[in-house]
């Protein structure tokens, strides 16, 4: 494929030559034709997009010169002179295949002109514009760039001033200076030198004592001692860790907030960096662990997982609206950019859409690296030993258990309390009446009920229920005969007027409430009594059932029957209504799931994973009734097996992979079950009754799960108990999904054997779930093989069950006055009051204050125990880190033009080929390739790794690197000012075992570093940018050491190291700035103001801006004011100290002495006479301090802290 942009320079040159020859002898008429008919069209319609000056050259095609037409663009030449009619240019004008210009078809005349012109041989006098074209880079030539050659050590240059160099590196610097005729600057005086070294190495100022000790140290080793002390200081890691974090674009959240992944444990990475630097972890190792810490050594040290934060803490972008592929590609790009600019000094991200235009980097190289990150997964992992994890898990289960004990106890107590609340019925009633009245005139008052509840000291929740109950539609209320007096009142009173102020009305309502209460009180003992005797028979399903069902029993299968509507079960099953929610036609049924994946919701908010029971993902099955013609219970009829043949089971028949959940509260509310009654769920015969589709090896697991809503959002206690094939099996929860754990009872087979279920249902149970799974032969290998499993005789029985005789006797002898209908209505009323969502069912949280003393006492004890186990749990530290793990190893396709929807050829994971001598060497790995990547980068064979870090270290000491574009060592980057020195340092660095501290020492002890920073006109005239380092560069402190220094000189600095990040803006924050929370979304104001880099992208250097907003901070901020006050407080505390001198000679501390003390702290030097006078003058004349203002001394302190001297390091 011939593409213009792939032409090499020589070929292009020959082309230009060829076109020039054509242009040299143009036919005048032909040119005339071109000029009048063709050129204007090109100019008007084409060149906006297709010329060398186009804002965006479309399709790589240039139509502003002849050779552009002939060589064409991305899809080939525009004009084919041999076959003019096939020229794409003409086709495009005719809208044949391509449509150009896009804004509208040109006139037929113009098209005809073009046809003629092309046939003429496309005469065109236009020269190729002198604009560089985006050529494909000549790989061989480009890879000859200095930075791709391995650094070699050269011999030390000869110098004349041989007594000047103190380190080898000085000879390189001096040699260049001597060549240029510049003398190096004298050594800085010691006060300046120590301050420079302190800020450089540990980011804090020296104390006056440290300064004096150094200044007065006669030893020739004095400076070496200081340097060594600083490099050994743990503050070194804090200072230099921050330099690295700039490169690693360290941040603890995302720029966006919509479903953003945050990094609360991000500080582990920051701390790892600090600690690694303090330990002088060899730089190659330092890099390897950040790229592939999880893959190094065996077993890997859990602490090392934090190192992976370099990539794990990266930005994560929006992945909504089909933009996932783009977002992922953006994320890989971030990782690649951070890695390659940060570590290799190469701008490889340029090759995301097209081959790099200047460096020998292709899109294949880019996607070869992207594949590594695409094959790595984000993972939060513990960075502690396994024993600690086990301890934590054990402590957690104890904690959860205790939490459940407390919750359940409260729950139980609250249930017992319910009947006692009958006394409050009139209060609730009248309060509800008030609320209903108020609503008439103020329908928008959303706080109404809350307010009334507060006024009347009632439960807001219960009051709402009362309002709903009493304010229900007339139709609903008519069904409640116990409300007849109320209904009558309502129908009589004015429904639009607010009557709550009317005393007579209030009295009437109160009377109705009291009567209602009396009615409840009247029926309550009967309920309680019968309950105590034998439990009540609320299991009326319909009259017909009553004859066949024993007292105290609720046959669940029968609940499906629809006594009124006549909907056959088959019809009911096929409707959405039936599946989604319980209604009158499916009384008690919460959900029916026909066929489900391994994980399914068995009840609201409760997810269960049935993998262990052999479910698969296929959808099949359902709750069945194969006695189709029999209205009534769900049944299944044995057809195939002799043992069961013809046997219709009374109960619930289910297909494989079906699930049905009953909402017991609904049964309670319907008056079918007393609210606080224990029940037993029984199934006489559960198993495979039939197998119409199976193969004879059919098998199933039948499970029953008892559950309730979670007591608290974060406590997973929804499952009360789970049974498989009749036996209790342990259920556990992980990540909000439950599953059966431990041994599962043997499979049920279609062999005529059945199991029984006998399951205690506590009063707090809300859901009862029956499950049938086709089990196949083992977990995960489910086959659909278990049609017609059955829960035969599935029923709820009161516990204890009433003695049948007693009931029978009672029924036989009872007064016929006991009207069944009446009985049911009473039961219903009691349920409305006492079931879990009932009118008097005070939630446990609110019930607490009303509990009897003994219960309260018990609760205190239980909570004490909870506190203890919680302490124990909290005490076990499981440190977590945001980390990476191996994903599915895969090679990415090259995305054409960077577009994820246009995949091209596959780019096998490998290093960019410029590192492998132009040959692609794909990594043979089943993993991500990170291990191989780390090895290739942290390697002596890599020409860039050592050079890039050496240059960065140099830069951080001198303000500029030897290469002044620290993250770009490519063609467009700067060339090193001292290439031999850079190589010398790089080789030496690697030879020293990649020791950063050795490198620092070498630099810090050099004569170059120790020079004065003062301006020298003679040198500046020759080298104004100080490229040759004839002096030290003066540098402004970055925000971190500036702020830290302020806290240090006021004596306030909290030197605690490591740990969770803190809000920098908090007024009590005295930690080093390194420990500030770094937000990608909203960077702290102080950091933002003082040139902290955007943590969304890797930063190669801090910009240094000088703007008034910064100085407003200096002049007016609370932070500065507080420091000024603290500095003076420190001064006062110091001077107030009793003097050690003989008491008779105690001089009053003079203003001058105090000023001297302040100068010592802030600048490490003594004030000059004039500075003293200035200070004294200021203090003498500054006006007295207003109450809330700053005293003259504090103002003086503010000035000292705000000076250039405090902000700049010489």
């Amino acid at each position, binding site marked *: 494929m011939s593409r213009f942009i792939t032409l090499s320079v020589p070929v292009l040159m020959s082309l230009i030559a060829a076109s020039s020859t054509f242009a040299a002898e143009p036919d005048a008429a032909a040119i005339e034709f071109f000029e009048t008919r063709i050129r204007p069209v090109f100019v008007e319609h084409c060149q906006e997009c297709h010329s060398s000056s186009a804002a965006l050259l479309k399709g790589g095609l240039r139509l502003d010169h002849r050779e552009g037409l002939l060589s064409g663009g991305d899809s080939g030449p525009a004009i084919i002179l041999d076959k003019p009619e096939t020229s794409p240019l003409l086709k495009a004008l005719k809208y044949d295949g391509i449509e150009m210009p896009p804004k509208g078809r040109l006139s037929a005349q113009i098209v005809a002109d073009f046809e003629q012109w092309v046939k003429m041989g496309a005469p065109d006098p236009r020269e190729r514009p002198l604009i560089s074209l985006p050529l494909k880079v000549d790989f061989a030539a480009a890879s000859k760039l200095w930075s791709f050659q391995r650094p070699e050590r050269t011999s030390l240059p000869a110098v004349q001033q041989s007594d000047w160099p103190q380190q080898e590196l000085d000879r390189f610097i001096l040699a260049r200076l001597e060549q240029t005729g510049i003398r190096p600057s004298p050594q800085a005086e010691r006060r300046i030198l120590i301050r420079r070294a302190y800020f450089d190495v540990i980011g804090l100022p020296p104390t006056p004592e440290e300064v004096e000790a150094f200044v007065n140290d006669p030893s020739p080793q004095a400076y070496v001692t200081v340097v060594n002390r600083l490099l050994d200081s743990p503050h070194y890691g804090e200072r230099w860790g921050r330099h690295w974090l700039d490169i690693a674009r360290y941040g603890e959240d995302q720029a966006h907030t919509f479903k953003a992944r945050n990094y609360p444990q991000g500080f582990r990475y920051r701390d790892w960096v600090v600690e690694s630097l303090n330990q002088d972890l060899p730089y190659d190792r330092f890099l390897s662990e950040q790229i592939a810490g999880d893959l190094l050594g065996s077993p890997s040290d859990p602490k090392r997982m934090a190192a992976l934060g370099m990539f794990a803490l990266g930005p994560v972008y929006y992945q909504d609206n089909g933009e996932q592929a783009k977002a992922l590609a953006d994320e890989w790009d971030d990782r690649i950019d951070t890695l390659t*600019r940060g570590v290799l000094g190469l701008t490889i991200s340029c090759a995301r859409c097209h081959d790099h235009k200047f460096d020998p980097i292709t899109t294949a190289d880019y996607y070869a690296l992207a594949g590594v990150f695409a094959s790595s997964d984000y993972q939060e992992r513990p960075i502690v030993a396994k024993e600690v994890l086990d301890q934590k898990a054990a402590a957690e289960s104890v904690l959860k258990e205790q939490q459940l004990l407390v919750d359940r106890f409260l729950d139980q107590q609250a249930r017992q309390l319910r009947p006692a609340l009958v006394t409050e019925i009139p209060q609730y009633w009248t309060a509800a009446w008030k609320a209903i009245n108020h609503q008439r005139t103020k329908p928008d008052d959303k706080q109404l009920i809350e307010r009334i509840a507060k006024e009347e000291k009632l439960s807001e929740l219960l009051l709402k229920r009362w309002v709903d109950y009493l304010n229900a539609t007339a139709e609903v209320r008519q069904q409640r005969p116990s409300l007849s007096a109320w209904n009558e009142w309502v129908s009589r009173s004015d429904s639009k007027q607010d009557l709550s102020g009317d005393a007579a009305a209030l009295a009437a309502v109160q009377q109705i409430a009291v009567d209602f209460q009396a009615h409840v009180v009247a029926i309550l003992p009967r309920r309680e009594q019968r309950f105590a005797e034998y439990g009540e028979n609320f299991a009326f399903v319909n009259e017909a059932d009553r004859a066949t069902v024993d007292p105290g029993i609720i046959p669940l299968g029968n609940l499906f029957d629809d006594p009124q509507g006549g909907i056959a079960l088959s019809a009911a099953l096929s409707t959405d209504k039936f599946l989604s929610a319980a209604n009158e036609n499916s009384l008690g049924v919460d959900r029916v799931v026909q066929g489900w994946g391994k994980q399914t919701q068995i009840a609201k908010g409760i997810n269960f994973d049935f993998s262990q029971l052999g479910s698969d993902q296929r959808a099949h099955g359902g709750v069945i009734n194969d006695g189709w013609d029999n209205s009534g219970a769900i049944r299944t009829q044995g057809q195939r097996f002799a043992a069961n043949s013809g046997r219709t089971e009374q109960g619930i028949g289910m297909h494989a992979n079906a699930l049905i959940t009953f909402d017991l509260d609904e049964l309670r509310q319907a008056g079918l079950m007393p609210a606080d009654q224990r029940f037993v769920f029984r199934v006489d015969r559960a198993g495979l009754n039939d197998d119409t589709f199976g193969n004879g090896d059919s098998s199933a697991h039948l499970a029953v799960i008892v559950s309730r809503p979670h007591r608290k959002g974060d406590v997973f206690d929804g499952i009360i108990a789970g049974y498989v094939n009749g036996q209790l099996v342990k259920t556990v929860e992980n990540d909000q999904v439950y599953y059966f754990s431990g041994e599962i009872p043997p499979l049920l087979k279609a062999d005529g054997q059945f199991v029984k279920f006998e399951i205690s249902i506590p009063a707090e149970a809300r859901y009862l779930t029956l499950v049938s799974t086709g089990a196949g032969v083992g977990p995960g290998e489910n086959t659909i093989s278990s049609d017609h499993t059955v829960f035969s005789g599935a029923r709820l029985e009161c516990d204890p069950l009433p003695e049948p005789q007693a009931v029978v006797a009672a029924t036989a002898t009872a007064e016929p006055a006991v009207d069944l209908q009446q009985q049911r209505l009473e039961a219903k009323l009691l349920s409305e009051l006492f079931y879990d969502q009932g009118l008097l069912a005070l939630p446990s949280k609110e019930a607490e204050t009303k509990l009897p003393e003994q219960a309260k006492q018990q609760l205190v004890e239980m909570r004490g125990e909870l506190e203890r186990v919680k302490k124990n749990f909290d005490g076990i530290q499981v440190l977590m880190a945001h980390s990476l793990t191996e994903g599915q190893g895969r090679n990415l396709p090259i995305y054409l033009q960077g577009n994820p929807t246009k995949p091209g050829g596959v780019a096998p994971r490998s290093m960019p080929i410029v590192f492998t001598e132009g040959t692609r060497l794909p990594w043979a790995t089943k993993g991500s390739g990170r291990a191989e990547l780390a090895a290739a980068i942290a390697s002596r064979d890599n020409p860039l790794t050592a050079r890039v870090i050496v240059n960065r270290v140099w830069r951080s000491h001198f303000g500029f690197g030897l290469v002044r574009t620290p993250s770009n060592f490519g063609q467009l980057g700067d060339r090193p000012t001292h290439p031999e020195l850079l190589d010398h340092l790089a080789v030496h660095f690697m030879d020293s075992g990649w020791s950063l501290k050795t490198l620092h020492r070498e630099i810090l002890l050099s004569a170059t570093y120790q020079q004065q920073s003062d301006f020298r006109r003679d040198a500046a005239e020759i080298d104004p940018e100080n490229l040759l380092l004839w002096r030290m560069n003066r540098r402004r402190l970055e925000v971190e050491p500036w702020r830290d220094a302020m806290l240090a000189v006021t004596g306030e600095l909290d030197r605690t190291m490591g740990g969770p990040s803190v809000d920098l803006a908090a007024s009590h924050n005295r930690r080093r700035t390194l420990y500030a929370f770094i937000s990608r979304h909203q960077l702290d104001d102080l950091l933002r103001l003082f040139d902290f880099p955007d943590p*969304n992208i890797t930063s190669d250097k801090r910009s240094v801006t000088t703007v008034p907003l910064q*100085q407003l901070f200096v002049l007016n901020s609370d932070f500065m004011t507080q420091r000024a006050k603290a500095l003076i407080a420190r001064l006062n505390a110091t001077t107030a100290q009793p003097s050690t001198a003989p008491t008779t000679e105690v001089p009053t501390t003079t203003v001058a002495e105090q000023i001297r003390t302040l100068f010592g702290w802030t600048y490490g030097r003594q004030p000059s006479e004039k500075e003293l006078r200035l200070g004294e003058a200021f203090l003498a004349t500054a006006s007295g301090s207003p109450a809330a203002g700053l005293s003259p001394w504090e103002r003086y302190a503010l000035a000292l802290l705000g000076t*250039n001297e405090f902000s700049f390091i010489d």
Partner: protein
Amino acid sequence: MNLKPLFATHVDPYLPGACSRRQVLTRAGAGFGMLGLRSLLAAESPATLDKIPISAASNNPLAPRPAHFPPRAKRVIFLFMNGGPSHVDTFDYKPALKEQEGKSGPGGKFMPSPFQFAKYGQSGMEISELYPHLSRHADDLCVIRSMHTTTPNHEPGLFMMNSGSQQPIRPSLGSWLTYGLGSENQNLPGFVVLCPGKPVVGPALWGNSFLPGIYQGTHINNSKIDPRQVIGHLNNKHLNAGDQRQLLDLLQAMNDRHLADRGQDVELEARIASLEMAYRMQFEAQEAFDVSREEESTRTLYGEGEFANGCLIARRLVERGVRMVQLYYGAGQPWDAHGDIMDHKRDALKSDQAIAALLQDLKSRGMLEETLILWGGEFGRTPAAQGAKGRDHHHTGFTVWMAGGGVKGGLTYGATDDVGVHAVENRMDVHDLHATILHLMGLDHTKLTYRYSGRDFRLTDVHGTVTNAILA
């Protein structure tokens, strides 16, 4: 030496302009004022005081810079209707929605606008009843009905409209403008963002990303009415202007001495100058944000409320040379009318009069010609109903409008299809809009570049075409 009179300077801090350094220096007077104090030390150096502003100015990244070509507009006011205003209920009349009512459309059933439209001005521009005041300026408006963007989600949509990228990794429009053109007032930030609280996403919307930090927008909470509180640390809580001047003179005296010892240093000088600028800014910025200084009639014209206040502050700021003011309609995303499109009535009511007043006020001051007003949100809303009465996010066709600053007034440009779903005629994407804004400001969007990460970045990335048809 009698030092007493040295610091005897008391000035009313709230007297406008009372505290410029020059005046304080003059007031100190009598040969031995503040100047005398500074010279106490400065005498050691070759008169740094005089040359400071010059060397510092050359180093000032916010100094005004020439445009690529003569600009049509010198400043921008971007009225941002965050949440996404519905186009079919405001400026893109779709009678066909009535006919299609209840029929299935993308995301729901078509719902005609509950608002009446009428034609306004000589141009006969169709505007809904939501904008009774603004519609009187129909002939000033250049309504673009053919906008489209990438994503119907707030955060990416906001990023796209503000930075040309839906990820938070690019500088904002205002950052690019101040980078390209600097600012004409060194005592105020060049790019000011007014929002009572924060819109969704927040500061990243006016972030500088890889551009130098000086170009980030300065967020001002315009629900705060105290002009002293609007810029961080603008107000000194402890010292009056005189005391503060005295402190600053001490500080500068020490800085002068420090500089003198070290000879020439541009950065030291810049910081010295910058301290003086900060001092002045305290008073000038407060003045700029103080709408109480406006004539009563002007304040009445704008009406009441945060947004009206914001419009008035915006005018005061551009009047003082601020390059771009972005005014968010409110905190969060008020225009996000999922539940009930009638909520637009509330938002239009609170903004209509103020926007109209802004246009009128700028015009009467002769500033409209050089001030580009832009109105719009991150996207539009679905012509189909969401729920019973609401509209969902919609990105394939929506409306923004411009006024002043070199755009054609009374022009309706581009069109969506009959039902307002897709932009079909003269389609304009966000990059085109950005390219056109830069063009109006005298900048070639392909040449306004910043070298970063090995390549030249642009606001429009590799996209964007200037829409010449809307230029006046």
